[in-house]
């Protein structure tokens, strides 16, 4: 039991708990904060796996951008609209919803996780080799040589998403002003 393994196990345990809170926290705001915490812990997991660049990107993109966007989205909208009540257990398990929202998700999730874990435990994996020494340099050179076209496409994708988000927001404002 070396230090890396202990750190990994601690991070993993806390990550699973906080991911559980993302699903179960009563207030959507708390769920968003738990989500940011989970992302932060996953960045730590990346560090223990020797992926320094991805850990930094995880903190920048997920903790810095995605969580902030979700928090802003919750806070900038009218509270009553977004913080719509999550179903209570009794109304969750009512009529048809009993199968669709009560039984089926549990069966699907448990079956999926059980199958995946069984495959993981039964497969014969190669012994841990300890990765490559300088992953940052490796990623940098691979990204601009082998993967340069996907890299540029990702840039175009981000631009399209940016323009699309702005267009969606602007058009809605116009229509709302005309309507009122």
């Amino acid at each position: 039991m070396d230090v890396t393994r202990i750190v990994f196990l601690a991070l993993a345990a806390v990550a699973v708990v906080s991911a559980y809170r993302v699903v179960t926290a009563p207030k959507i705001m708390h769920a968003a904060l738990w989500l940011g915490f989970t992302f932060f812990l996953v960045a730590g997991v990346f560090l223990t796996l020797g992926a320094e660049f991805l850990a930094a990107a995880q903190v920048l993109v997920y903790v810095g951008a995605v969580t902030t966007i979700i928090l802003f989205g919750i806070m900038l909208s009218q509270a009553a609209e977004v913080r719509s009540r999550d179903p209570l257990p009794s109304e969750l398990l009512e009529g048809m919803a009993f199968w669709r929202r009560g039984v089926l998700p549990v069966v699907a999730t448990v079956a999926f996780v059980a199958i995946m874990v069984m495959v993981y435990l039964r497969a014969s994996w190669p012994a841990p080799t300890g990765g490559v020494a300088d992953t940052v340099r490796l990623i940098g050179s691979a990204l601009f040589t082998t993967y340069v076209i996907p890299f540029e496409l990702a840039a175009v994708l981000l631009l399209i998403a940016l323009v699309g988000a702005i267009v969606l927001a602007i058009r809605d404002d116009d229509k709302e002003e005309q309507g009122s």
Partner: protein
Amino acid sequence: MTTIPVTYPLVLGAALFGLGLYGALTQRNAIRILMCVELMLNAVNINLVAFAATLRDAAAAGQIFALFIMTVAAAEVALALAIILILARREKHIDIERVHLLRW
């Protein structure tokens, strides 16, 4: 350098993916479903990084795939939140059980 057996991060990825899947299937709040989808994408990234670390990936393919998944996830969350906020303004709720705009 890592000495973690590959099954540890794989099981962690399966657990996080399962939690995200369960949330996406049971929740009715659109923002919370979005958060669960992000959780699932992150679980997949853990798997990719674990394989990259274990298989001594000289081409860094696993980490670069994870990087592209991050890019797509960032674009996805921006667009999804824009759509959800428009929905909140028009319908005054974001309960996906009561949204029929795209159904017919």
